[in-house]
């Protein structure tokens, strides 16, 4: 009797040992896969950084070097002064922050209407909105340019902020998220007499915080990287955006660019976004942990 019991225990132990090996293997491959992918993702950044530290001559070598022979931190100083990054950062921050805030408000309201409110033609309209996403944006530029000129918005912060406040893309993203929140919560709130706006603010916004933060990042990124539109409508010193400033500062008449300095400038410009991202990531985590609804 006792023998059979020990046999069984042994079996169980063996099974769990096999399972453990299996688990370790899975962990190993998971990490190996992730680290390999991470290296692939990282390579271009590594390249950007080392290029920004090279001399122009070394950068132009036929056989690229993987570590700068002579580290040129001076490229960074040169980048900062030639592009007068200070003013550019300031302009871009104003446009980025204001347009992100306004855009969030508009997106939340619209997504709520599409996700929770019932009104005639809702689906048709949503379908139409999605369809606009499919039109290549280049064609908008021509007409929008005429519009803002007629409105007299040239060379203002307005012209950089207002035309792109509404993004069908963000509305779609947030609506999907709102749809996942059980309708029962909304109906219960209605029974309690909670107003729509209060419900929106107290329940839906916190529950979709990760999406909202994603939108914030995307929008900030957009302001940071926008190029064609600002160049066209606000290319004066007082409103010039960072990417335009960069491009302008590094185009010489001979068409020959000091790439290492340009790379340094790109790295400098990327740094704040990177910091914002690292900072906001914690909020994404927090938002995720809060979103546990008992289903």
């Amino acid at each position: 009797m006792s023998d059979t019991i020990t046999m069984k225990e042994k079996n169980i132990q063996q099974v769990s040992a096999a399972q453990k090996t299996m688990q370790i293997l899975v962990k190993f491959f998971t990490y190996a896969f992730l680290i390999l992918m991470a290296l692939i993702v990282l390579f271009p950044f590594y390249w950007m950084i080392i290029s920004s530290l090279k001399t122009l001559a070394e950068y132009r070598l036929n056989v690229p070097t993987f570590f700068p022979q002579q580290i040129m931190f001076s490229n960074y100083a040169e980048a900062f002064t030639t592009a007068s990054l200070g003013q550019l950062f300031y302009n871009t921050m104003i446009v980025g922050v204001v347009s992100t805030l306004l855009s969030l408000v508009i997106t939340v309201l619209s997504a709520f209407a599409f996700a929770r409110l019932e009104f005639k033609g809702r689906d048709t309209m949503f379908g139409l909105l999605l369809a606009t996403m499919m039109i290549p944006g280049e064609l908008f530029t021509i007409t929008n340019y005429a519009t803002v000129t007629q409105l007299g918005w040239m060379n203002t912060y307005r012209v950089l902020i207002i035309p792109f406040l509404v993004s069908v893309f963000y509305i779609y993203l947030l609506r999907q998220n709102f749809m996942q929140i059980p309708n029962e919560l909304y109906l219960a709130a209605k029974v309690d007499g909670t107003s729509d706006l209060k419900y929106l603010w107290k329940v839906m916004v916190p529950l979709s915080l990760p999406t909202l933060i994603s939108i914030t990042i995307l929008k900030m990124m957009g302001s940071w990287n926008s190029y064609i539109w600002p160049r066209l409508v606000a290319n004066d010193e007082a409103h010039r955006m960072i990417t335009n400033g960069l491009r302008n500062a590094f185009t010489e008449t001979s068409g020959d660019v000091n790439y290492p300095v340009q790379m340094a400038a790109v790295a400098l410009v990327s740094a704040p976004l990177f910091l914002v991202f690292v900072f906001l990531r914690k909020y994404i985590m927090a938002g995720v942990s809060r979103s546990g609804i008992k289903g």
Partner: protein
Amino acid sequence: MVDSKQQWKAWLYLAPAIVLLLVFTVWPIINTVRMSLLENYSGLQATAGAQFQFGLGNFLKVVRYRQFTQCLKNTCILCFLTVPISTILALLIAVALNSIKFLQKGLQTIFFLPYVTNSIAIGMVFAAMFNIVGSFYGTENELIVTAGIINNVIEFFGGTHINWINYGSSYAANIFVMVVYIVWNALPFKILVLLGGLQGINKQYYEAAKVDGTPRRRVFTKITVPLLSPMLAYVVITGFIGGFKEYTSIVGIFGETMGPPDAAKRLNTMVGFIYDSLSSNSQGRASAAALILFAIILVVTLINNQVSKKRVHY
């Protein structure tokens, strides 16, 4: 069912979005249609007061263009290769990230990094990685100064270098490079969305599966994928829409020639075609091409929606 109070409230909430969209999206679309229907419309000539006949000439000219089918083919090939590959890779990475604790945050940050960079710089880096600097490939005089890091790796493992993007390179090699670059670019957004979705899945499902001793693969196909399906559908649909608008990534690798030097424009896409027309100030033709592209994307999206209606679990 639909009470009138909800009606006006809904419109009130939508008002700011609608006003802005009317001015900055709907009007440009109307104007696009107008320009596409005026024969050989050119903005500059219009400024000078030229008149244009009403007709479908722009559409005919676009469709009859000798490279039109090539543009369409490239666009479709890139789309149907990159969307599935990037979605599956992103899903694997997101699931893997979600399953680990140690290093999770660090790796997560790394995978989102491509968001915070300038596409000009990254395009330059990719081109340098695949570019062979030298001359006379494939001839007896072959001289290679540097074969690029990718070929160096291939040679390290005993292979022979491949002509990826230089002249004489094959269409398949070109497409391969484009797929790698586009997938690299598309990954962060997809990982971001999918990981967000994964972290929103109730842990109880997994605990239940654990108690039942469900194998890993079944957990993945029966719990993870179905519960993630809204996010997956979203990622696929936006992936297709973006894929059909592919252009800058090709310029990033091949430059304005849109192909290796001996086959310029070989990789041209629909949007590339629109840009070409715009640069010669043929807005009529550009508008017509844009509307054709729009129609194609619309059809693909409708098909996608039909498929996802059957598959997506909300």
